[in-house]
C-alpha cells in the first residue's frame, strides 16, 4: 500500500511538471501576439457580445492594466495560470460562450470515444501479440503480422471512408454522428437524466437500453477506425517483446520443470511483456488523441474537436485555441496516468522498484 502511494505521488508530481512545461511553452507562444490579443484571454464568463467598439477597447485596456500584460513573461504567466486554475479560460468570440463551458459540455462525447477504443484495442492488442509471439512463424503469427502490417500502413481516414461506404450507406449497420435524430430531442429534454454524460451508460441508467444500443451503433465506426491502428502498434510491440523473452533462462527452466506451455506464456511471460507494451501505448497517447479528434471530424461526431474545427476558420480566437490545447494535453496526461496504473497493477516488478 505504501509503495502504491509513493508510486502515485511520483506520477502526480511528474504530471504536474509536464503540465507546467507545456503551459509555459503555450504561454510563450501567446507572447508572440500583441497585448490586446492576450487581454482577450481574460474576458469574463458573462461577457456580453453586445458591446460597442469603444466599450470593448476600454475593457481590453482595463485587462492589460489589471493582469500586467506589459510586464515580463514570468509575471504574465503567473497571472494567466492562476486564472486558469480558478476556472476562467476566457470568452471565445467564435463559439460565443465561455471556453471552459464549451469544452466541458462536449468533453463526455470525446471521452466516450477514447474509453471505448481503449477497451477494444488494449485487450485485443495484448492478446493477439502474445498469441502471435508464442506461435512464432506459424500460421497465426504470419496472419497477425500481415494484418498488423496492413493496418499500420493504411491511412485511418481511408478506412473511415470505406467503412462509411459499406457499413453506413450499403448495410445501414452503423451511422455517423452521435445519436439518431429520433432520440436526440428526448436526450436533450429534462426527462433524460444526464449522469455520466456517456450516452451508452446514461441510456442504461435511465432504463432505456435502446438509447444505449443506438449510441453504440454510432460509436462503432469512430472506435473501429481508432482501434485498428492502435491495435496494430500495440500487438507488434507485444509480439516483439514476447519473442525476446522466449529464450530467457526462466522460460527454459519452467519448460524443464514441465510447466504447460500455455501456463508459461500466459502467467509467467505475460506479466513481463505487459510493461513494454504499456510504455509504447503511453508514448502514443498523444497520437491516439489526435486520432480521436480526426475521426470525430470525419464522422461528424459532436465532441471537443468542434472547437478545433472552428479555430481553423481564419478568425482570431486565441482563448478557444489555447483552451483546446490545454484540454488536449490534460487528456493525454490523464490517459497516460490511467495506463500507468493498469501497468502498475499487472507488472509486479514496478511495484518493487517504487
Amino acid at each position, binding site marked *: 500500500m505504501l509503495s502504491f502511494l509513493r508510486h502515485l505521488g511520483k506520477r502526480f508530481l511528474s504530471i504536474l*511538471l*509536464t503540465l507546467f*512545461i*507545456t503551459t509555459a*511553452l*503555450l504561454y510563450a*507562444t501567446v507572447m*508572440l*501576439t*500583441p497585448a490586446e*490579443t492576450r487581454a482577450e484571454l481574460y474576458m469574463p464568463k458573462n461577457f456580453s457580445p453586445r458591446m460597442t467598439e469603444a466599450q470593448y477597447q476600454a475593457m481590453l485596456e482595463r485587462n492589460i492594466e489589471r493582469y500586467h500584460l506589459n510586464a515580463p513573461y514570468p509575471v504574465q504567466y503567473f497571472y494567466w495560470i492562476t486564472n486558469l486554475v480558478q476556472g476562467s479560460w476566457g470568452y471565445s468570440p467564435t463559439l460565443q460562450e465561455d471556453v471552459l463551458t464549451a469544452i466541458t459540455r462536449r468533453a463526455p462525447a470525446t471521452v466516450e470515444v477514447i474509453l471505448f477504443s481503449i477497451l477494444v484495442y488494449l485487450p485485443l492488442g495484448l492478446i493477439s501479440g502474445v498469441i502471435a509471439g508464442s506461435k512464432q512463424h506459424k500460421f497465426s503469427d504470419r496472419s497477425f503480422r500481415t494484418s498488423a*502490417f*496492413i493496418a*499500420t*500502413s*493504411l*491511412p*485511418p*481516414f*481511408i478506412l473511415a*471512408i470505406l467503412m*462509411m*461506404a459499406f457499413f453506413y*450507406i*450499403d448495410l445501414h449497420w452503423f451511422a455517423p454522428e452521435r445519436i439518431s435524430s429520433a432520440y436526440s430531442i428526448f436526450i436533450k429534454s429534462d426527462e433524460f437524466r444526464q449522469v455520466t454524460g456517456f450516452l451508452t451508460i446514461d441510456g442504461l441508467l435511465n432504463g432505456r437500453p435502446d438509447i444505449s444500443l443506438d449510441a453504440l451503433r454510432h460509436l462503432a465506426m469512430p472506435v473501429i477506425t481508432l482501434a485498428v491502428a492502435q491495435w496494430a502498434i500495440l500487438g507488434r510491440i507485444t509480439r*516483439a517483446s514476447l*519473442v*525476446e523473452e522466449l529464450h530467457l533462462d526462466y522460460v527454459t527452466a519452467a519448460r524443464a520443470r514441465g510447466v504447460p506451455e500455455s501456463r508459461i506464456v500466459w502467467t509467467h511471460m505475460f506479466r513481463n511483456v505487459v510493461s513494454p507494451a504499456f510504455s509504447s501505448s503511453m*508514448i502514443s*497517447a*498523444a*497520437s491516439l*488523441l*489526435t486520432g480521436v*479528434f*480526426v475521426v470525430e*471530424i*470525419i464522422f461528424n461526431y459532436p465532441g471537443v*474537436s468542434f472547437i*478545433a*474545427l472552428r*479555430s*481553423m476558420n*481564419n*478568425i*482570431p*480566437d*486565441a482563448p478557444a*485555441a*489555447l483552451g*483546446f*490545447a490545454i484540454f*488536449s*494535453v490534460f487528456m*493525454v*496526461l490523464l490517459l*497516460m496516468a490511467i495506463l500507468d496504473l493498469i501497468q502498475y497493477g499487472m507488472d509486479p516488478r514496478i511495484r518493487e522498484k517504487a
Partner: protein
Amino acid sequence: MRSAQRFFTRWQNWVGLFLVLIFVVAAIAAPLLSPPDPKHPGPMKIIGRATLLQPQPPSQAAPLGTLSNQASVYHALIWGSRSALLFGLSVTLISAIIGTIIGMISAYFGGFVNSFFMRLTDALLSFPIIAAIVLVQQLISIALYNGGIRIYTQGSVLVLPSGDFLFDPKDFPGMMNFLLDLDPVLVALLLLSWMPYARIMNTMVLRIKKTEYVEAARAVGARHFRIIFKHLLPNAITPTFVLAARDIAGMVILQATFVFIGFGKGAPWATVLVYGRDWIYSQGGIFTYWWVFLPVTLALIAFGIGWNLIGDGLNDALNPRSQ
C-alpha cells in the same frame, strides 16, 4: 556489411524498394509523364469545360478520369507523388537532425543539461499534433488580422489604415503573403516530430559515451565537437534510420489526413479525395465513380507500405535479435 547482406536477402525489402522507386521515378519524371498546363501550373490540371460538374470517366486527355471540377486525376496522382516525397523527406530529415542533435548533446553533457532536455522532450511527447496545428493556425490568423488582412471564401483583402482596400495578393506586403501561404500542418509537424529521435539518440549516446574508445579520445585531448561528431554520431545513428524510414510514410499519411479534414494545404492526393468524397457514396455503389478515389487511395497505401517495408527491413537487418 553483414547487415546490408541481411537487408538484401529478404524479398519484402525488395518489394519496399521497388514501391518507393516507382514514386521516385514518378516524382522526377513528372513533367514528362504529365506535362503541366502552361497557364495554370500545379497539381490540379483542368481538362475540358468546368461546367460539366460531374466526374468524367477516363479518356484520352485524362487517363484516369476527372474530378467534379474537371481536374485530371492522373495529373494529380503524378504530381502528388512529387509533393508527397518532398514533404515526407524534408519533414523527416529536419526533425531527425533536430532530434539527433538535441538527444546527442544532452546525453554527452549529461547531468542537469540531460535531465532538462529529456524533461522537455517527454513533455512535448504529450502534446497532440492537432492542438499544435490549431495553435499555429491561430497565430497565423492573429498576425494576418493585425496586419489588416481579412480572409473570405472568395479570397483575401488587405484593409489599409486609410480605409482603402487592396484586392490583389501581389500588392500585399511580403510577410503577409508568406503567412497566407504558410501551411500550419508543416509547421506543427516540424515542431513536434523530433522527440522520438532525441530519445533514441539519448539512450544510445548514454550507453556509448562510457566505452573505452570514447574515453581514449577524451584522454588524448579531443575537443567536444570532435568527440560528438567523429566518435559518437556514427556509432549511435543507425537506430534512427528505422524510425526515419517509417516516419516518411507517417508524415505523408498525417498530412493527407489533415488535408482531408480541412486543416492543411497542399497534398494533391488528399485534395483529390476531398473533391471525390461526395462521389464515393453514389447510388450505383462505390465503384460507379471509382477513379475519384481508387487511384489516389492505392497510391497512399502503396507509399505507406513501401516505406514501412523498408523500415521493417532495416530494423531486422540492424538488430537481428528482433527477428
